């Protein structure tokens, strides 16, 4: 059974910040019978076993915790990591860069600069395993998704629309536009820690050459990242 704690209806950094702060605070004193919590853009879904933990008890616990803090104005969750992800922009790895530049009325190099300068937050993971939604890009990135779905984009595709970045860990169909690709993989099922990016983590993209992309080794990268 689920109890949904909603902080708003839309994606906004202050709503998402409240979600992430509440999720962390709830986890610190999680009552027995809670199965898992799912922080998203705007809400936290608490999945629980209603026979082990009565709904009223959980609701009371949540109400108490909600009263304890101004969640919208709370500090960013502690322990979050800062990732710098090497990315090849444009060309075969970012075939929609030209189209995005047209939408933004900018040159391709200006688009890349704007994207790589942005300090982004992992707002949530969802849709497919480890896929990260990152926000929030500057206003100029406010354009919608395509109505036509691209049947498949590769793992590591850097996808953009609605001032957000989507970073899939597996090939997915998508209506988002691909401006680049990173060799970084947030999800590796065989790794000791299968998921690297967590909700709340900070991410910045760093333009690199195709040669650097080819030479990238996850194990080397993880020796120094996150710093």
């Amino acid at each position: 059974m689920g109890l949904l704690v909603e902080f708003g209806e839309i994606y906004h950094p202050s709503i998402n910040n409240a979600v992430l702060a509440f999720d962390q605070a709830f986890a610190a004193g999680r009552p027995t019978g809670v199965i898992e919590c799912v922080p998203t853009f705007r809400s936290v879904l608490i999945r629980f076993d209603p026979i082990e933990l009565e709904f009223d008890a959980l609701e009371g616990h949540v109400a108490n915790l909600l009263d304890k803090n101004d969640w919208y104005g709370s500090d960013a969750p502690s322990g979050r990591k800062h990732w710098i992800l090497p990315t090849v922009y444009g060309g075969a790895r970012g075939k929609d860069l030209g189209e995005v530049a047209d939408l933004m009325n900018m040159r391709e190099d200006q688009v890349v600069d704007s994207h790589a300068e942005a300090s982004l937050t992992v707002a949530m993971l969802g849709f497919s395993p480890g896929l990260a939604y990152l926000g929030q890009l500057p206003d100029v990135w406010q354009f919608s998704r395509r109505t036509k779905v691209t049947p498949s984009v590769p793992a590591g595709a850097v996808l953009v629309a609605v001032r957000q970045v989507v970073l899939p860990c597996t090939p997915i169909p998508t209506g988002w536009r691909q401006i680049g690709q990173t060799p970084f993989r947030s999800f590796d099922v065989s790794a000791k820690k299968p998921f690297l990016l967590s909700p709340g983590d900070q991410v910045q993209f760093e333009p690199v050459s195709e040669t650097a992309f080819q030479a990238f080794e996850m194990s080397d990268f993880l020796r120094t990242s996150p710093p």
Partner: protein
Amino acid sequence: MTGLEILKITPSATVQDRGRVGFLRFGVTGGGAMDAYGLAEGQVLLGNGPDDAAIEFAEFGGEFRAIAPVQVALSGAEMTAQLNGHPVAWRRTVALSAGDVLNIGAAKTGVYGYLHVGGGFQTDVVLGSRSTHLRAGFGHVLAVGQKITAGSDRIVQERALPAPNTFESREIRAMWGPQSHYFSEETRAAFSAATLEVLPARDRMGICLSSSAGKIKSATGLSIASDAINLGDIQVTGDGTPTALLADRGSSGGYPRIATLITADLGPFAQLRTGSKIGLRMVKRSDAVQALDKFRRKINGLPKLLMPLVRDPWRMDDLLSYNLVDGVLRGDEDDAN
């Protein structure tokens, strides 16, 4: 080592166990058997553990050859089944000898049937589960020629379970949820009173329904951001089609969800054949909890329903292959002394 070699298989057949828990925040839904009770039947028949994996069939089965002696059981939706060309009953243990061929055909009732081996199928464990989740990239499509290893077999006495009455349900229970208010009271009343038909667009991800009350309208100008989708949520897409989201659903979505099917009724719902007509019965939270408790007791009570099978010689058409005289005394053994 024993197990089964796949001789024929349908693409919709997958290895499933109870599914994954705890990875929804990373975008990974539970997966797992579409009919938890059906899965548990086979586990109980063979004395397997609750986390052991079986092959789940959707409407059609496949053909399997025993690599070495192995005990198997068939559970869930009853399908036609033959052992070396002779009919074999559903919901019982079957001892296979090396080379025996088990053929599983079409479902006679329901949709999802399960083939178990003693000790469970030993496929790779991914994030705590053997459940295949093709959209997520976990597990593989089963292929002809593939050999699937069985775990250590306990060899139980031949036994059977009675068939449950959960196929062809006419009523499925549901609860209103946190997004129900995006639909007007009239829309909700019409939806919950309507007859819902199971459409052909269905798989492990979800089941599309058509409502006798017509397309469902959600409030206009709706632009809620994506959040977590719970098991059994009924989302309404832009064209007004309600879809119940099941084991292999995406973890999050932005379409408003009008209601949620209760956990206890997810198995019977998944077992509904395409074209089935059902009604929803909206229940209170306390009723859903009570139903869940009852459902768990039913699964935990399965061992008590086991019936030992006594062989009837007149129904054994391969009578000569059975060793019926082992240990029989002549009666004059003592005379020699």
